[in-house]
């Protein structure tokens, strides 16, 4: 059941927006598309910063319809802009409490100390925003938005204005929020990497329209979508840490379709761990031969395949008892012919390397 229903129509010069979104009420929902696809515009319309024709219903509450338009300051949202946009006349602490002060005490579900700890900004509180690094500023901006105890968190490419190092610095905090917060997050991004690390649900945007939407693991492996055809195409597995093997310095991660080995993780057993597998790192075999150095061999069923280039084929495999966990493999056309691939055929997927989404 969708919890956020948004329909907007607008004509802005040469650009026209026409979206009809039905989004889940939890997890991280990524609005993904190239710049100019209208994803930020949709986010602003949901916040009420733009007013278009349409309707918006969030968890049963009407924020916009033909007659009504809830003003921005009355919407229970948190909004993180692309640039941190901290108030330069206030200290970090005053920035944080700006929104906190303005919501009734009874509605405060997230406390200052908790957020400060989550985002690691305790040592910055007395500083002025001008004296923070880019990554620190954005963390303060995220904390400031969270402190309004929003029912919906809107993030407009919060990492895109940062350098690679600040990005790497801030992503773990976002992943932590993902695990600790129960509020839905709408996350605008044009980075497949961020989507693979953070998103649970993916909405693809193109030229002002939403072209496809669904759970991220499924969307990233759909052969008809451009994201699966990119050089960095990858699959996502949600696993739990099942065993540590200190003698080899390896950890075993289980998921309903089998298990994969990685370098040893510092996480305790039972911890949830998302892993990503690049399509180019998956090869296929007809038998589970144990005579190679590859550790991760998973039984799989061929679901479908499609030509990618003149010499490569993209294969979508199903893992698990009902082949419901998708895995993408990129192999040569010649191998596909030699293995006589066909939908329904059972194979073994050899996974050369597993990327931890940490």
């Amino acid at each position, binding site marked *: 059941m969708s919890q956020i229903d948004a329909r907007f129509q607008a004509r802005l010069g040469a650009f026209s927006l026409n979206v009809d979104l039905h989004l889940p009420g939890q997890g991280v929902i990524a609005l993904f598309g190239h710049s100019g696809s209208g994803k930020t515009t949709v986010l602003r319309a949901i916040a009420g910063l733009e007013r278009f024709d349409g309707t918006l219903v969030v968890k049963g509450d009407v924020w916009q319809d033909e007659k009504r338009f809830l003003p921005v*300051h009355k919407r229970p*949202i948190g909004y993180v802009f692309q640039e941190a*946009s901290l108030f*330069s006349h206030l200290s970090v602490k005053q920035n944080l409490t*700006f929104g906190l002060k303005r919501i009734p005490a009874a509605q405060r579900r997230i406390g200052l100390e908790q957020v400060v700890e989550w985002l690691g900004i305790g040592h910055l509180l007395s500083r002025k925003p001008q004296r923070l690094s880019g990554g620190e500023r954005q963390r303060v901006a995220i904390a400031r938005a969270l402190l309004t105890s929003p029912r919906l968190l809107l993030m407009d490419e919060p990492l895109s204005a940062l350098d690679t190092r600040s990005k790497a610095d801030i992503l773990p905090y976002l992943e932590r929020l993902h695990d600790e917060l129960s509020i839905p997050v709408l996350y605008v991004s044009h980075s497949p990497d961020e989507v693979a690390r953070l998103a649970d649900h993916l909405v693809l945007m193109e030229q002002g329209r939403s072209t496809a939407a669904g759970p991220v693991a499924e969307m990233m492996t759909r052969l008809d979508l451009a994201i699966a055809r990119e050089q960095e195409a990858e699959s996502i597995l949600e696993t739990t840490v099942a065993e540590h093997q200190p003698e080899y310095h390896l950890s075993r991660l289980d998921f309903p379709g089998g298990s994969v080995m990685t370098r040893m993780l510092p996480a305790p057993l039972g911890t949830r761990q998302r892993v990503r597998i690049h399509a180019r790192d998956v090869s296929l075999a007809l038998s589970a031969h144990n005579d190679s150095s590859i550790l991760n061999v998973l039984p799989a069923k061929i679901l479908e395949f499609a030509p990618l280039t003149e010499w490569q084929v993209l294969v979508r495999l199903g893992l698990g008892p009902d082949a419901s966990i998708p895995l993408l493999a990129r192999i040569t056309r010649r191998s596909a012919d030699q293995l006589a691939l066909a939908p329904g055929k059972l194979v073994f997927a050899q996974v050369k390397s597993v990327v931890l989404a940490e």
Partner: protein
Amino acid sequence: MAFDWQPVWLTLKLASVTTVLLLLVGTPIAWWLSQTRSRLKHPLSAVVALPLVLPPTVLGFYLLIFLGPNGPGGGLTQALGIGTLPFTFAGLVVASVLYSLPFVVQPLQNAFEALGRRPLEVAATLRASGWDSFFHVAVPLARPGFLTAMVLGFAHTVGEFGVVLMIGGNIPGETKVLSVAIYDHVETLEYGQAHLLSAGMVGFAFLVLVTLYLVNGRISRGEHA
């Protein structure tokens, strides 16, 4: 002959009252001009800027007619039982507010426009209503603009002459401000008195401007450091 302080005090009183009124009148105008997409924006900006271009005597002349016993403004003030404003301190205040308006509105409008939309959008997403955002975000962020506006409004009122002469005349204790007093002294060849007042004015103007530049320089360095 003892130094006559009266014109000095009168001038300071006029400039203070005028500056306070200018902020009250000029801030909403500047805010509206900075936010509006109305077609009236440019005509209104032009009206506010008129005193920059017109000779002060033109402004004073029309005010004299307008506020005089037979003018619409004069009719109104008489109906209200205030009497007529020309040749009174109140009349000087009205004239000064109009005359110095662009010196307050323009720095404020520039400061508000320089903020851009973002701080107000952020404030709205943090549950601040329009008024709340204005007082707690726009005004503090536009602080250098307010300082410039106050100083320019005050200083420009201190320095006015033409308008005062037209509408205020030369009544000691009521409308005889510094600039008029200097003119008087020169006319009656009291060069010593004229020197004292004039040198005082030069020193005052210099001090005001140096303070303004110093303070604004420090604010903008603080913001960007």
